């Protein structure tokens, strides 16, 4: 049985726990049945150590439930980024890292591999049982750091010279980096940059701020890389629609981010069934970048054309399958803010004045079902509603009746 460590080698395992604790937080230990009890205890202990006071516990009849509760309006820095600063390493990794960058303390210092090895020995002679580094270990680490962009190499005669990359000066004030670390995709990278500042007093806070996407940062980086290089991707999709994870073969086209629901979707061309579909980014894992896709630009253009009929993330095969919806709302005197709401909250479609007290919204989209939550937010003033999809219209009306019953109103609105 391996000893408990605070750091982890693979983030994927702890990613799902963090999400469960944060989004749900009502499951007891016994319900994490797909993993062993030992594994649960270790992950819970790690997350508690990383997140401190954001982690809570409550005892129920089912047992002790762990949950993460964060008011992102109060917490100016996304605490979930801490989870991405927990990669484990070997004793040699950390020792070599600090000595190497001390040897190469400025970009002007250039050393060959043998010179670096000699330098290492000199540093380590301060210890009674010095570590031994062979040539291949150091060369491998140098190659890794060259790929990360922190070490450069150049040829000198028959040897390679290694030196640290030139310094890139960050802005004196960290306010901008802080802001973008919270609102831009892959904001964890901004958080890594903030760690370089001695003080990052917060001048900006956030409202309506969803933070779970932090857990998907590594996935997003790979998806963006695939888009950037116009390549295919294979990934595993842990969809709620199927019991088993499903392998997908896609061309990533664009990430659709919702600031109203906290969800992120990947819009991608599905190479298995020849159409653009959406996948929840938080359900994706094991993203592997594949071959160049010659049709990437065509697929992206197709998505761009489809956007005029997309309220959310649902995309149809062709515009032959379009649906329409229109609803009218009552706007009383002094309630112009309702018209403003329609105008600013509509993502497409039109708002027209019917008379002094009525305004009609209408739209043609792939999936009118995506508008249901928004339309419901106008309940109390909807005077007419019409869907081309009759099933959906019936659902809307049934739901409304059901809501009346829920609150003991029990009437029939028709």
């Amino acid at each position, binding site marked *: 049985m391996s000893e408990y460590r*605070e*750091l982890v080698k693979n*983030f994927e395992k702890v990613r799902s726990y963090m999400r469960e604790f*944060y*989004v749900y937080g*009502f499951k007891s230990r016994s319900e994490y049945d797909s993993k062993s009890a030992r594994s649960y205890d270790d992950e819970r202990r790690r997350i508690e*150590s990383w997140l401190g006071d954001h982690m809570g516990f409550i005892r129920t009849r089912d047992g002790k439930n762990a949950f993460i509760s*964060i008011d992102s309006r*109060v917490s100016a820095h996304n605490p979930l980024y801490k989870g991405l*600063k927990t*990669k484990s*390493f070997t*004793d040699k*990794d*950390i020792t070599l*890292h*600090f000595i190497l*960058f*001390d040897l190469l*303390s400025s970009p002007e210092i250039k050393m060959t591999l043998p010179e670096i090895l000699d330098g290492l020995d000199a540093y380590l002679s*301060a*210890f009674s049982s010095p570590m031994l580094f062979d040539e291949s270990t150091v060369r491998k680490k140098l190659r890794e750091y060259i*790929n990360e*962009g922190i070490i450069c190499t150049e040829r000198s005669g028959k040897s390679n010279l290694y030196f640290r990359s*030139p*310094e*890139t*000066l960050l802005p004196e004030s960290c*306010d*901008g980096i802080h*802001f973008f670390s919270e609102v831009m995709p*892959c904001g964890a*990278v*901004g958080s*890594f*940059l903030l760690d370089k500042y001695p003080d990052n007093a*917060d*001048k*900006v*806070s*956030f*409202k*309506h701020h*969803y*933070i*779970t996407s932090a857990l998907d940062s590594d996935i997003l*980086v790979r998806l963006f890389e695939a888009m*950037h290089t116009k390549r295919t991707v294979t990934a595993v999709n842990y969809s709620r629609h199927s019991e088993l994870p499903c392998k997908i073969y896609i061309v990533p086209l*664009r990430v659709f*981010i919702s600031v109203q629901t906290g*969800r992120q979707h990947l819009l991608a061309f599905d190479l298995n069934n020849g159409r653009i579909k959406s996948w929840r980014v938080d359900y994706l894992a094991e993203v592997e970048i594949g071959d160049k896709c010659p049709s990437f630009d065509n697929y992206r253009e197709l998505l761009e054309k489809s956007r005029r009929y*997309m309220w959310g993330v649902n995309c149809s095969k062709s515009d032959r399958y379009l649906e329409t919806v229109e609803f009218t709302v009552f706007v009383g005197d002094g309630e112009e803010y309702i018209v403003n709401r329609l105008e600013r909250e509509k993502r497409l479609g039109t708002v027209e004045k019917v008379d002094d007290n009525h305004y009609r919204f209408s739209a043609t989209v792939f999936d009118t079902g995506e508008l249901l939550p928004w339309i419901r*937010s106008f309940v*109390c*003033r909807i005077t*007419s509603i019409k869907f081309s999809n009759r099933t959906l219209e019936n659902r809307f009306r049934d739901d409304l009746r*059901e*809501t009346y019953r829920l*609150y003991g*109103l029990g009437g029939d609105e028709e």
Partner: protein
Amino acid sequence: MIFSELYSAYYNAVAEIITLVISGERDEKRLREAVCDKAFSESVLEVLPSLRSGKWQIITPSLETPIKNKPTLPLTLLQKRWLKAVMLDPRVKLFGIEIEGLEEVEPLFTSEDYLVYDKYLDGDDFEDEGYIIRFRNILKGLRENTPLRITYLSRHGDEVVFCVLPERLEYSEKDDKFRLIARGSRSLTTFNLNRVLRVTAVKGSPPIREKISPPETCSVTLRIRDERNALERCMLHFAHFEKYAERLDNGDYTVRVNYSVDDETEMVIRILRFGPFVEVVEPQSFRELIIDRLKKQMSIKI
């Protein structure tokens, strides 16, 4: 790779310890504080013992180090690429960020690679020169703790002048707007930046910040019936609030959400979005707000 030891809290903690030791600071308590500050609550059990035992050969058992320079690390390619992506965002001008050395760097993503598809359409105009100047003046006031004179366009179209001490800027991703939270004479006041007309610094020494009570919060308890994925949708939707969830015997769920009193109407609208799958259980006063809207809707024959 985002998940790399290069960005790890332990590397940051060790860099801080080396910095302290180089500067002659060897007090055990101070070193422990550095670990707690840079890493996690249990990290002290690992970091200092690993250094002192020679497991990590950077600090000797007698708290000396062969390292000569304060540890620094150049930016990784990933960090540069992310910064390049940031530089393409129109909001970057608000903060006056300029970074040299990124000319040859490819952005990690561009606006073609992602889309925030449901933010409101009447967001602030971040490219308006006047807006940028006012934003920077406010930011300067925040950084320097300077009182500000704000000329504000009221809802009724009047110009009103306030003298305030800026507390913080608040950004809503949904509204795509900035607000200034500032201290007035007795309480915190919120100003929408798109209605701020002028900002000037008030000369004189900064006033003492007296403690002001945080905005009043209250809670609403919801019952969720998990149909059509309502549970996940609801829990994610309210994820950014402080909340506590519980499963009931009948398979339903309850979630108590804490929110600011000022946002009550917004909460009503957000809860209505879920239709019959999310019911307000308590408080009764909040339940009445929903009932009132439902009654009004019932009275309209559609």
